[in-house]
C-alpha cells in the first residue's frame, strides 16, 4: 500500500518525553515512575500497558474547586508505553519547563508531568467583572506540559508592552505576571450594545502570554469519558 497516510502520518521517532504528532496530537512516552496528569477523555490511543485513573486521590483535595463549575477534570496515567492525546482537533502546544511557572487556562490544559508542582487558582478579578469564573492550573518545576489551542496560537512578549487579552482567548501565561483586569467599554456600552470587547486581562512583567485565535465561548465538555 502506498499513500500519504502511510508515507507521512506513520509512527514517528521517539524524541522526548512529549512531542507532537502532526499539530493536533500529543505523544507522551510513559515510563514507570513518570506518571502523567491528562485531561479526562483526551486519550485517543496508547501502546503498551497504561492504566488510567479518573479520580486519583491526589486530585480529591481539589474537588471542591471543580465543583464550582468550570474546572480541570484530570486523570492520572500510569504505566509504560506510548500515549497519544488530543482534544477535539485543537492544536497541541508542548512546553518543556525548566524551572519556570506557567499558568494554563483550565480549558486548555491537556497533560502535564505528575512530578511538577501544581495547583488551581482562580484568576483574580475576572469573575467579578464578567460573572464567569476562570480557573487556571499553575504548574511549576522541571518537566513537560501539553496545552491545547483552538487554532494556531501566538505568544506575545509582555516585556515589550503591557498586553491585553480577551479572557476567552487566553491559553496560558507566565506565572508571576501582573494581572490587571481592564474594562475598555464605557459604561453606556455595557447596556445593550457594546463593542463586544468589554473586559480584558492586562499582563505586564517578565514573561509571555499565549493567545488562541478563537473566543471559545461555548463551554467545553467539562466532564467526559
Amino acid at each position, binding site marked *: 500500500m502506498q499513500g500519504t497516510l502511510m508515507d507521512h502520518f506513520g509512527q514517528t521517532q521517539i*524524541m522526548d518525553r512529549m512531542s*507532537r504528532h502532526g499539530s493536533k496530537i500529543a505523544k507522551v512516552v510513559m515510563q514507570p515512575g513518570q506518571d502523567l496528569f491528562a485531561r479526562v477523555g483526551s486519550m485517543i490511543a496508547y501502546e503498551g500497558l497504561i492504566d488510567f485513573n479518573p479520580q486519583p486521590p491526589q486530585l480529591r483535595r481539589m474537588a471542591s474547586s471543580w465543583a464550582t463549575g468550570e474546572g480541570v477534570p484530570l486523570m492520572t496515567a500510569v504505566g509504560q508505553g506510548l500515549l497519544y492525546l488530543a482534544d477535539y482537533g485543537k492544536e497541541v502546544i508542548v512546553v518543556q519547563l525548566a524551572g519556570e511557572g506557567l499558568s494554563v487556562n483550565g480549558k486548555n490544559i491537556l497533560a502535564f508531568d505528575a512530578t511538577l508542582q501544581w495547583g488551581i487558582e482562580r484568576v483574580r478579578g475576572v469573575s467579578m467583572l464578567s460573572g464567569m469564573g476562570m480557573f487556571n492550573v499553575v504548574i511549576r518545576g522541571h518537566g513537560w506540559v501539553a496545552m491545547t489551542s*483552538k487554532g*494556531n496560537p501566538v505568544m506575545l512578549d509582555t516585556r515589550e508592552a503591557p*498586553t491585553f487579552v480577551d479572557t476567552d482567548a487566553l491559553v496560558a501565561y507566565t506565572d508571576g505576571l501582573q494581572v490587571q483586569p481592564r474594562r475598555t467599554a464605557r459604561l453606556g456600552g455595557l447596556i445593550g450594545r457594546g463593542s463586544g470587547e468589554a473586559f480584558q486581562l492586562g499582563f505586564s512583567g517578565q514573561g*509571555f502570554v499565549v493567545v488562541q485565535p478563537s473566543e471559545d465561548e461555548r463551554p467545553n465538555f467539562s466532564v467526559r469519558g
Partner: protein
Amino acid sequence: MVQQFSRGQKSQLSAVTPGTDLYIGIALNAPGLTWDVSCFGLDANDKLSDDRYFIFFNQPKSPEESVQLLGEQAGDTQSFRVTLEKVPASIHKLAFCAAIDGAGAASGISSGYFRIVVGGSEVMRYAFTGADFTSERAVMICDLYRKGVWRVSAVGQGFAGGLAELIRSFGGDVEDEPAPPLAPAASTGFGPPLGATQTFAPPPAPVATGPAYSKPSPSQVPPSQVSPPSVPSASAPAYAQPVAPPAAPVPVQPPGYGQPQPGYGQQQPGYGQQASGGYGPAEVLPSQAQPVQPGAMNSLSPYREVPTAGRWTQQNGKLVKVTLGQGPDVLALRGSMVAYQGDVDFDYKSAGLRGMLENKLTGQGLKLMTCKGRGEVFLAHDAGDLHIVELNGQSLCISTRNILAFDSTLHTEVKRIESPGIPGGGLFHFEVSGQGSIVVMTKGAPMTLNVAGPTFADMNALVAWTSGMRVSVSTQVRISRQIYAGSSGESLALQFMGFQGHFVVVQPYEV
C-alpha cells in the same frame, strides 16, 4: 479544454487527460540562449539510478521507447513522446529540465511553457517567464510522477548549476568533456573521477559499477553502465539530506527540492506556507516533527509574534495583526479582538439609520466595532482561516459572514442579486471598494477560481467574487443537499460570467 497550471500546482494526470500516450512540448524563448532540454527518469529516491532513462540529445529514447525525444517542432523548443504504460515500474518520476548551453541566466527567458498534447489537442499548459527565476542556469520545469497514479506537477524551480550539476544532483555523474572512447570510461567507472566532488569512499571491488558511474557519452555503450539497485541506495543518503554531507554536489539546490518526500507540503509552496513563512508552524506533518526545546519561552518560540510588515500582518493562518496609529481606524467584527498591546479603544460602531434599515431588510447586517488608538491588535474569530486582501482601488463583493475586519477608509455597500429563485427574492451581499485592506475569513482553506468560462458556485459556500461580473442564478444546476431528506432543498448555484482577471472564492464549508 486546456488546463492552465501555475507554478507549484499539482494534479492527477487523469484529471488533465485520460490518455497515456502523451506529447510533451517545452518551449523556451530566450534571446541569445541555447537550451538543452532533457528528461530524467528517476527512481523512488529521486535518483537517476539507471542512465538509460536520462533522455537527452545524445540518448533520444529509453530502452523500451517509453520516453522518446522528438526534437524541435510545432513551436516547441523540444518535444517528447511519453507512453506512460510502457514506463517501467522502477521509474517513479520523469523530470523535465532545461539547462542553458553556455553562459546566460534563466531570468533571460522572455516566455516559455510546458504543455501536454493528447490526441492532437492540448490538455495542459504551464506557462512561465524569466521573472520566476534569477541567475540560475538550469530550470526544472515540470514533473510527471507516480504516487499511486500518475500525477503532474508544475515545478518551475531554477537550479544554480548547469546541466552537469543538474545531473549530479540527481545522482548521476558527468565527465566534463565528452569522454574519449571506452578506455577512460572503464577506468573511471570504478572510482570517483577527478572532477567529481562526491565524498563517499570508493566502494569495495565487488560492487561492480561503484557510485561514480558515468553519463553515457556518445560513444559509450549504455548497457555496460547499468547500475545495480544497490548503488542508488548507497548514494541516496547524501542526497536525501542536503544539509548533512559536507561536500555533496547539491549544495546549491533550492531548499526542499531534493528531499525525498514527493511533493506533499514540501516542494510546493502550498497553502499555508506561501506568505513568506508567516503562517507559522501550523501544518506540520508528523514525519517532520521537531523536538521541543527546554525552557517555556524556547518551547513556545515557534509561536512567537511575527515582525510587523505594514499595517496588516498575517500572524498565522488564523490570526491577523493590525498596527494602529497611523492611518485610518479599523472596523472589525464585534468580539474578534483576542489580544492587543498598546492603547486601543473598542467602540460600538453604529451603521447609521440607513444601515439599520438595510440590516433589517437584508439580514446582512455587519456587527462591527471600531478599533482606534495606538498599538497592535490581534484579530481572529472562531479559528477561521484569515486572508488579507489589498483592494488597491478595485472592488470586491463579499458575503457578510466572511468579513472579519477592514480599513474604515473602504466603502461598503449592500447589493442585491435579484432572482425569483432565491428565497426572499434576492441575494444580498456587500460590495467593498476603495483603498485599503479587508480581512476575509473562511472556514477551511478556500479556493479561488478564475472565471474563464461559465463558473458555478454554491450560494452557501460562496465567499467573495470580483464585482463587474454577470451573475445569475442557475436553475439547472441543483447539485447539493437536495438528495438528503429533511433539507429544504433550496440550495442554489450562482453562475458567474466574466472576463480575464475575474475570480470567485469558495470555501469548503457550506454554511
